[in-house]
């Protein structure tokens, strides 16, 4: 059985004297949506940065397993190799698009490594040799597919920075998908979205999981999104895992409620309201 896509084992991350992540272990199942939640400053984004190679964890092991059994030790890989070889794609909390380039260009850049190979590492394509044109058409087709899925098709030739906020979030997901990942890491995809956009996002993520068979790792504050679509939830507080389980288990866990109660009033209220709404 090859059921686990990501195995995080005893990961610790220190910045100088500050312990951001303390001995964290959890697993993410294949074809499932795993959410990481926790109060502000709990270390969620740091976990993402370790998984995607932007930070090197101080200790610990992060193993990613492909469906064919190939294994990657993420803590030993450069950030760009994690996307290129281990097939992990991510989005950013504070959207990072190529704002001065068009939506379509954004999606083609996500297919850089494939296209690079197709262009004979530039040497053949600059001379007009090889089958680069065909590959570029395929890349555009893939881009068109994800634009269609995200409803951005008619904005393909507009600069990315010109899109409204909600569309920028969607574009960032579409861009990540164009790099053909097996694991998609989303850092607060619902932040700043209105309820309607938030619901659309839910549908999009569920579709990504069903149709493309992709596993999703999600950081989210919006409990509506988390509780509705997650298969499994990991709760962090002060860099430690305080609870784990299905949405139902997590919401009943006293440690989770205490963690949220211990932080900010509005956040607690938000959680309580959600919990009531769900129940």
């Amino acid at each position, binding site marked *: 059985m090859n059921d686990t896509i990501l195995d995080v084992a005893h990961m610790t991350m220190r910045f100088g004297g500050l312990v951001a992540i303390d001995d964290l272990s959890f697993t993410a199942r294949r074809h499932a949506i795993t959410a990481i939640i926790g109060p502000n400053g709990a270390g969620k984004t740091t976990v993402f940065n370790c998984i995607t190679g*932007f*930070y090197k964890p101080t200790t610990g092991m992060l193993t990613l397993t492909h469906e064919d059994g190939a294994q990657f030790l993420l803590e030993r890989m450069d950030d760009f190799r994690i996307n290129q070889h281990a097939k992990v794609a991510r989005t950013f909390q504070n959207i990072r698009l190529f704002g001065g380039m068009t939506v379509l260009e954004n999606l083609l850049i996500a297919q850089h490594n494939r296209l690079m190979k197709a262009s004979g590492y530039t040497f053949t394509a600059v001379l007009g040799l090889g089958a680069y044109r065909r590959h570029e058409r395929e890349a555009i087709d893939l881009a068109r597919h994800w634009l269609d899925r995200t409803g951005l098709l008619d904005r393909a030739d507009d600069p990315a920075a010109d899109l409204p906020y909600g569309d920028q979030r969607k574009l960032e997901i579409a861009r990540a998908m164009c790099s053909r990942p097996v694991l998609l890491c989303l850092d607060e995809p619902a932040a700043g979205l209105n309820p309607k956009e938030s619901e659309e996002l839910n549908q999009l993520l569920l579709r990504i999981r069903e149709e493309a068979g992709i596993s999703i790792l999600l950081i989210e504050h919006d409990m509506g999104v988390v509780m509705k679509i997650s298969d499994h939830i990991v709760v962090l507080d002060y860099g430690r895992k305080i609870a784990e389980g299905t949405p139902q288990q997590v919401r009943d866990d006293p440690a989770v409620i205490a963690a949220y109660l211990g932080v900010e009033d509005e956040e607690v209220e938000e959680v309580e309201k959600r919990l009531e709404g769900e129940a």
Partner: protein
Amino acid sequence: MEYFLQQLINGLTLGSIYGLIAIGYTMVYGIIGMINFAHGDIFMIGAFISLIMFLVLIGLGLTFIPLALLIVMIVAMLFTAAWGWTVERIAYRPLRESFRLAPLITAIGMSIFLQNFVQIAQGARVKPLQPVVTGGYTIMEGNGFSVQLSNIQIIIMVLTVVLMAAFSWLIANTSLGRAQRACEQDRVMAGLLGVNVDRTISLTFVIGAALAAVAGLMFLLYYGVIDFYIGFVAGIKAFTAAVLGGIGSLPGAMLGGLIIGLIETFWSAYFTIEYKDVAAFSMLAIVLIFLPSGLLGKPEVEKV
């Protein structure tokens, strides 16, 4: 040993000059995050104003050297500060909210302008000044080599220490210093809290230019010749000093200046004098690549 000691003295003297220029770089970088590329040329202008003021005083028959030095220093500081203020006002302030590289490019333009302005106004030839401060002490003798500590070297080092102390105190204890540190942290917030950001930045340039003027005066007295081109190389070396010490840190600038002065002097003394600039430039590259936050600076964590 004697030779080594002599080089040490020479290196510390040179380092003091670099350190004073480096303060201007480090303060400006600290407050608006840009390299004031024209700062080396401000130093050159300081040297020229000092030279002209000396000649004026000599022409007026003032022969009491300490008084002449004091007058020249004050005049050079004032008038060079005006240049520093103007450069900021014309070339940097309009671009404060522009993209990052714009002020760097105007800075290069300013640097070119200042060099050529002085070249046209004062001529391209080197300007000699007869020794003003003479004499000194022999502090050690042996092996047919005597270690000299000249009066001018004493003046340079003492003056540098005094100015350093004065300005460190200024930054630490006055409202100007507080405003400066506030602007360094967050310019917009400082503005919202009532700090006059424009004025604070202008004053930073003025102080930096005044110190560069003192450095220019020292350079003039120490070497006895200047030309319109001295700012370029001295500027890069002083910038290296600022980076080496940790950009944004005043003691760092001084420490960096001394180290660069020592490296240059010892390189010239023990290796080849032709390649002394290569040594300084390579030092810059090495420091930035391996020690980007400098000796006394704070390391940065990349934000993702």
